[in-house]
């Protein structure tokens, strides 16, 4: 879905995560970038360098907010101060949507600062959906939820992750930030078919995609965002784009961050699939299965 109500009817193209090591390059060279994704929490401050940088970025670029601490799966109400600051930032950045993770991370008023997995049950989905609705109404913009990479599964789960994600977004009436790398990482850790996952999510709700690199260890795979996406992730991305349609895409690179140009070059690889699908997708939806292996890396 190129533009839908979950991404504010936008068609942003290829984005790059705004990261501290690149500030100087971006501000001095003003490179061409479709849009930047910011981690909201890094800018929920009253002033100083973070806000000065953001103000300069906003003069030149479109910015989308992506959060890491709304914890939709934690039953507690969101922190008032947090929400208030988020809303101020939403107004400042004019972000067309706000993304955060379908996870939990706080309990009894204390925070783990991690994106922890949820037990996939109807009751959990209800908790998450209510919180997403609350946040969405408060912020007055579309909220989209991102699937996690995870390393553990709960005995209490009664459905698959993709069934759970679908249950939540339908109940919350929100969009999906489909992280293709996270699907791939979790598929290896939990032994499911990542293509089946992609084929099972409600495609009309996908508002944005993430791609990233990860690290493979002997017995598990960890989401590290410290390298280029591997070919298998690009293949899965191509499949997802073929199924969903042209979708705003962002490359996440958070550790061992290389030069801005290197990140940009890697992110731009997604454009060929975006452009290819936008040419064909307008006439009819093509089956995603037909696009497996449609990768020219």
């Amino acid at each position, binding site marked *: 879905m190129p533009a839908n109500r979950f991404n504010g009817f936008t068609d942003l193209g290829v984005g790059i995560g705004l990261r501290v090591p690149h500030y100087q390059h971006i501000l001095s060279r003003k490179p061409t970038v479709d849009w930047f994704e910011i981690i909201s929490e890094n800018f929920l401050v009253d*002033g*100083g360098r*973070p806000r000065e940088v953001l103000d300069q970025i906003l003069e030149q670029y479109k910015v989308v907010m992506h959060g890491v601490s709304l914890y939709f799966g934690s039953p507690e109400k969101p922190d008032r101060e947090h929400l208030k600051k988020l809303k101020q930032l939403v107004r400042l950045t004019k972000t067309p949507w706000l993304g955060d993770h379908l996870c939990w991370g706080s309990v009894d008023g*204390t925070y783990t600062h991690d*994106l922890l997995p949820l037990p996939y049950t109807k009751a959990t989905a209800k908790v998450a959906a209510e919180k997403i609705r609350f946040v969405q109404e408060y912020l007055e913009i579309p909220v989209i939820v991102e699937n996690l990479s995870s*390393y553990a599964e*709960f*005995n*209490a789960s009664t459905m698959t992750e993709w069934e759970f994600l679908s249950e939540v977004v339908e109940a919350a009436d929100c969009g999906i930030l489909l992280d293709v790398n996270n699907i791939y990482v979790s598929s290896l850790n939990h032994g499911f078919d990542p293509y089946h996952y992609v084929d099972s999510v409600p495609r009309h709700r996908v508002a944005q995609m993430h791609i990233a690199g990860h690290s493979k260890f002997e017995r598990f795979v*960890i989401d590290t965002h410290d390298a280029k996406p591997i070919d298998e992730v690009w293949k899965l991305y191509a499949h997802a784009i073929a199924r969903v349609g042209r979708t705003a895409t962002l490359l996440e690179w958070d550790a061992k961050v290389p030069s801005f140009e290197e990140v940009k070059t890697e992110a731009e690889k997604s454009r060929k699939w975006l452009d290819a699908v936008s040419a064909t997708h307008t006439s009819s939806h093509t089956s995603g299965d037909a696009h497996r292996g449609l990768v020219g890396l």
Partner: protein
Amino acid sequence: MNAFEEVKSKAQLKKLQRAFAEIIRRPLRDNDSMIADRRSSNIISPNQVLSAHERLELYARQYWWRIKDSLYEDFPGVRKVLGEALYHQVAEAYLIARPSTSFTLRNLGKSFPEFLKKSKLIPIPVRNLAFEVALLEWDKIDVFDAAQGTPPSDSTPANARLTLSPALRIRALRYPAHRIIRGSVGESDSGTDHEQTSNTVSAKRKVKPKSGRISVKPKPTFLATHRYRGLIYFKELTRNEFALLSAIQTSRSLTVALKAWRPTGVAKAQIDSIVGDMFKEWGALGWISVNPGKRSPGLT
């Protein structure tokens, strides 16, 4: 059926999350292994290669590495005062006693200075210095992203209340603690930016070899920590400067502040000229700010 096998209500979800958090928040052993908990296999299912314990251990490591790393970066001066080994002991004790209550990692060290002040893990002679160094390091974090405030101008109403800029902290210290904090002048991007990312994993910090402790002799010190053109600086103050800045910070008007100010070693005839010089410098540094919405009974 065990207590965590079913999540059919909000209460059951919360109970499960509470147990999960308790398990991963127990300090890791020296080899980074997680302490065994019989609830692990009740909560988490194993896969073909990892047990429930091992799967949770990935989260336990992540939790501890992330928060320890954050505190480590924020308090380099405290590390120098305590030495690496004692620092790690105290930091872990702090993170157990005061788990984060803020949505942002930026605030993780907010209570660290007070914790150090009372920590019995630290020998008394070192404790006071560690406390003051931590205070200044927290001030740096606070000042880095504080609002600048509105400097007074020709259009400022005559009855506007003046106060100190939020990007300025003043301290009366027992030690010249700022001398411990290397690189305090002209911080680079990486020094104070608290960047959170959306990935779920960070690498473990490599432990530095044991280093000696650094100390300074006690000496009454008045200090300003302030932001100027995006960078954080320490500036030593005279006793008179500190007293007037304190009075401005706490008084309901500048007139009251000036009346409360008792400068030492200054002849009465010189006061106006000294105050004028101080305000000229503080104005240039952006230290004086108009308190929005507040009006004082008399601005002179």
